């Protein structure tokens, strides 16, 4: 008789358990996870803007969830290289571990800000290529490159950078695109630089966005 009682109880418990297992086994990481690659121009004209990079990265650390990725890299004379990646992290699925990783990243960011050295040339294309490579490896659903630069590319002699780039759905957000002194002489140069990059991104299958007002950081990842 006691077995007759335990039978429905066991069936109910096992049913719920199996449903739970089934539900959990059907769980997977959603392809809407984000991956962000922050590219920081360290050329002579732009290296003084690092405090703005710090505030944006802090904002990103608050927004990004466990399982999502963030990388910080500099743009110098030869940017198409892993050595230019200052920090890269895919946050752990456990929130407590993810928080620890975020704290460590802040420390790395502060350290990088102190040791930043202005570069002679500005290889933006190389940095963007490196960013695309990293973002494609993350297999995230929403990939974004944040580009802190004045968009003035100066490459070494012999470097080939004048070719189309395949963005394949990646968003490129140019943040705090500063004006050069020469832009004051002829503002069309500034507009030309911006338009050229916008066209290059759009033609490569990417999405272009420019944000100069850092009070509207919530627009960055939208």
């Amino acid at each position: 008789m006691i077995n007759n009682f335990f039978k429905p109880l066991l069936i109910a418990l096992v049913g719920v358990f199996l449903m739970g297992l089934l539900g959990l086994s059907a769980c997977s990481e959603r392809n809407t996870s984000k991956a962000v690659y922050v590219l920081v121009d360290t050329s002579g004209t732009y290296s003084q803007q690092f405090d703005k990079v710090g505030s944006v990265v802090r904002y990103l650390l608050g927004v990004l969830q466990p399982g999502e990725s963030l990388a910080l890299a500099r743009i110098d004379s030869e940017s198409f290289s892993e050595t230019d990646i200052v920090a890269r992290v895919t946050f752990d699925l456990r929130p407590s571990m993810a928080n620890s990783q975020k704290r460590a990243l802040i420390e790395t960011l502060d350290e990088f800000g102190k040791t930043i050295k202005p570069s002679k040339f500005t290889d933006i294309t190389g940095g963007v290529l490196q960013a695309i490579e990293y973002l494609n490896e993350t297999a995230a659903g929403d990939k974004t490159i944040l580009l802190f630069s004045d968009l003035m590319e100066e490459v070494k002699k012999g470097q080939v950078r004048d070719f189309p780039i395949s963005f394949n759905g990646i968003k490129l957000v140019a943040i705090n695109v500063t004006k050069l002194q020469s832009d004051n002489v002829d503002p069309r140069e500034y507009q030309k630089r911006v338009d050229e990059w916008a066209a290059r991104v759009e033609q490569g299958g990417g999405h272009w966005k420019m944000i100069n007002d850092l009070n509207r950081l919530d627009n960055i990842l939208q």
Partner: protein
Amino acid sequence: MTFDFWSNLVEGQPGVSLLISISLLMLIMYVARQQAHQIIMTLARSIRNALRMMSQSIMYAERQLRARNREVLMAQGQEHAERFVEREFQRVETLVNRDLSGYPSLQRDLKEQITRIDEDYVQSGEVPPKPPEWLKAVETVAEIHDNGSPVVSKILTDIHGTLKKSLDKNMQEYRKANRERHGLLKKMMPYWRSLGNTLNSVEKKITGLEQRSMIIDGQMQSYEEIRNQSDHAERMLSSSSMTQFFISGLALCLAVVGMYVNFQLVALPMQEMVGAASYLGNSAIRASDVAALFVISIEVILGLFLMDSVGVTRLFPIVHLLEDHKRKIIFWVILCILFIFASIEASLAYMRDMLAADREALSQMLLGAEVAEPPLRWIPAVGQMIMGFTLPFVLTFVAIPLESFIHSFRTVGGLFLSWVLHVVVVLIRFIANLIYGIGRTLVSAYDLVIFIPLRIEQIIKPATTTVAEERAEPVRSELVQGAEAEQVKDT
């Protein structure tokens, strides 16, 4: 055959063409009048009859549903009354076992007390002292004359003294005996009190039993009414069922709120176990939320079985077929499992507090503010732990409103469905009458369109008018008969 065609029958004369067209149309309609009327009325009547049949079928289903509702209501009421009477009898049995099982010893005590009191009473009775045996001899000696003899006088004086002494002694003994009697009567007082208390307790027990028997009598009367399937019993049960439905529904809503609070306590720390970025398929449902719901569901199921095992609910009839000691075993087993779950939840709630604090600290750090430990941080942590521990036990009581809700839903749902069917019947009948009315209106409208030829027919050919009327008569009579029959059916 467009409008242009009909308006250009005569070249350049659209007015004349239209007139000819309309005249032709009227002529055709006049010729086909009887058939057209029949078609319209047949169609209207067919639709009305089909709808009527449909409404009758639904009415039959409604009657069946009402009968079924009544059966369910009566069966539930009967079961409830049986359970109530059974429970009352159990209480009476408990009372009898507890209080009246000691009745023989009580009776013995009472008898002993009464015997003691009786004995004491008998002993306390006043026994008059017997006169001394030598009193007669003394009387005889006292009658002797001394004749002035000093010897005799001395003897008599001695006798007097002896008598006095004897009387004093007797008086003292009498007083002593009286004292003893009063002492015995005083000793009887506690026995009397004890006897009074015993009788009072007996009276209370008997009164309790009397009250129980009155309750049982009342319940038995309603049980009889239910068994007799009386209308009063149906109304009473129906009202009771509606009340139960709303009360249990409210209780279930509150239970859902409790489950939501429980879910909030568990969901965040579950992210530490199953990961925060795992989702159910491609949906936006987090795996941690599913896991939290899973834990809460198990607790609720255990609660249902726990309540069944102690006999509070009867969701699973098989539980009540078990013997009492087996149910006790099951109760303790489930209680132990619930205790484990409650402990897990308490620890998860504590972890939740830690995670929240960590997240808050990180947010402050990201904002560049000084990370400070808030004062009395332990209070919410302990509060959450207590909630996490107690909520699984509180959720076990969901079984009670759930059972009431399920039982009352059967009858309330049946009543609602019956009401819906009734509304459908009314609607169908309304539509049927409407369609029939439209048919009759169309017939009249048809005649209105061809009123000119009809009028001409009436003026020019009075004789043929009768023929035309005869032609129209069947249709008209059908209309009238149909309308009258409709009115009779409606009434």
